[in-house]
């Protein structure tokens, strides 16, 4: 049994098929990269998997349990966490309170072991992403790079079985990207299973074991980074037909 099974997921918006019969599996401990040109349907796929949209057909199974079409909070509580491409912090709350919200959810409360208080656990999560100093700062005062790290801290507070990262490197400077790569690799070493949608291929390809390529809502290739880089169809989709 795979940790995540996506089977025949399809979503249509009127005449446009944004996601067309996409299937793939993710095993525990894996890092999966999902790439594709803009408009390929990657974020829609994430939205379908995490309950923000209902698929027209297909199934999503987490740990063998059918979670298709459940509401986002139920899916998060079952262990599938996500970050957002455009960061969504709780602006009026201090940084630490952003994490405390996640710890107030049913899963969050379970994951606070008895020796710790929510505040201590939240402090730890912030330390893990390097945001300890900004702990009491209102989230609206944080820089963009810090907000991206806060997104991750919030998702990790749920100690999810699978983390979906939606363009974690988007908008980051080279140094911040380096830091993010290290954070993600650390998460993987800690045993977390990750699926990452990303455009910055050089950063992504060095981290992931498997890559899934999407184009026009369809999965057109799946394999190791080396295989994908050599795949003619993938190159064509990104760079256009060779003359």
């Amino acid at each position, binding site marked *: 049994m795979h940790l995540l099974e996506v089977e025949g997921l399809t979503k249509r918006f009127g005449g446009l098929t944004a996601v067309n019969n996409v299937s793939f599996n993710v095993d525990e401990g894996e890092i999966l990269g999902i790439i594709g040109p803009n408009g390929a349907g990657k974020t829609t796929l994430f939205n379908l998997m*995490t*309950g*923000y949209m209902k698929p027209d057909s297909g199934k999503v199974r987490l740990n063998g349990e059918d979670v298709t079409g459940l*509401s*986002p*909070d139920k899916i*998060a*509580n079952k262990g599938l*966490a*996500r970050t*957002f491409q455009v960061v*969504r*912090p*709780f*602006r*009026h*709350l*201090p940084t*630490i*309170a*952003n994490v*405390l*919200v*996640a710890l*107030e*959810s*049913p*899963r*969050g409360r379970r994951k606070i072991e008895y020796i710790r*208080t*929510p*505040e*201590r656990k939240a*402090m730890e999560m912030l330390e893990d992403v390097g945001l300890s100093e900004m*702990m*009491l700062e*209102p989230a*609206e005062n944080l820089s963009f790079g810090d907000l991206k790290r806060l997104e991750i801290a*919030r*998702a990790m*507070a*749920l100690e999810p079985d699978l983390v979906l990262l939606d363009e974690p490197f988007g908008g980051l400077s080279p140094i911040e990207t380096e830091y993010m790569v290290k954070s993600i690799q650390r998460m993987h070493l800690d045993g977390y299973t990750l699926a990452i949608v990303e455009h910055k291929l050089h950063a992504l390809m060095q981290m992931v074991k498997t890559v899934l390529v999407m184009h026009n809502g369809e999965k057109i290739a799946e394999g190791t980074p080396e295989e994908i880089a050599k795949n003619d169809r993938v190159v064509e989709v990104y760079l256009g037909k060779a003359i």
Partner: protein
Amino acid sequence: MSVKYLRRAYVSFATHVYDVPPRMLAFLMFIALAILPLTQLNLTILERLTYANMIAILAVSWDLLVGRTGQISMGHALFWGVGAYSAALLFQYFGWPAWMTIPITMLVGVGIAVGIGIPCLRVKGPYLALVTMSLPLAVVGFLYYYPSAFHADTGIRLSALWPASFGWTGSFLANYYLSFALMAVSAVIIYKIATSKTGVVFVSLLDDELASKASGINVTKYKLLAFAISGLFGSLAGCVQGYFASSARPTAFDISLSIIPILVTILGGIGTIYGPLVGSYIYYLLYYYVFPPIIRWIAPSYAASVGVAGQQLVGFVIFLVIVIIFATRWPRGIARAIVDKLDDLQEAREIGEKK
């Protein structure tokens, strides 16, 4: 860094982590309200302060729901009226005394609030505002439609709260201290809720519902909880004020009771909890003692023709317009903006002196 320090610090709402001056202001205000009647036994002032106390409860209940949790209520008068009428009907048909009607009324308030909350989950934005605004009007229509049951033209009498031995002055004093006690208790409870983990989740609903869901929060549950708490205190306020006025009339659903919580909250600082409290007293100070003289000064003959009530009303409307115009400029409250400005001037003066 101790966990206790953290707990106190993380709950702050506005842009400063510590909002000490307004809290101090609220504290001083409590003290002043507590001892005022002992210094000045003017029944008119007492009655007005009593009313202001009850409005303060209504306003803080509104602020928790709208300012803190980000829901919409343009018809908060509904709770006030439901409070008054629930108690009155229980008294009229079953003869229940106040200590029985008040708790039941609060439960009715919760029920109505949750009942409103459920459709509010689906409807959004201006449509939701319209729906909430029209509910109290619909109820008034309903009251007039069944005159024999609801006596809309005369109102329904409510039992006296205090025994006759209190006398005229005594019952006014007792009313005042009851209203003060209820205001203080309501303020503390709502403050504690707002600064608890639940309150933190409420703010997450205000800021970003989708992100809150992604964090595993059952958004529906918390929204309905916010409505329930708001309805509980709103109907408590209307109910007890009904007892103070000795009757429940359709005016208990008046639109001004929906507007005033909004007005005083913007005045004092939306989402701050202390804001609606401070704003209520500032507003009534202006309403009773500043608007009429100003209107009389600006347009003496018009003022004379409409009388004090008219002067108050015109003052209210003009003030409302002013507050709306300035509300977006000072989101943390106009009162706070004035305090901040004075702080800045003070600082500038100190810097000038150091040089």
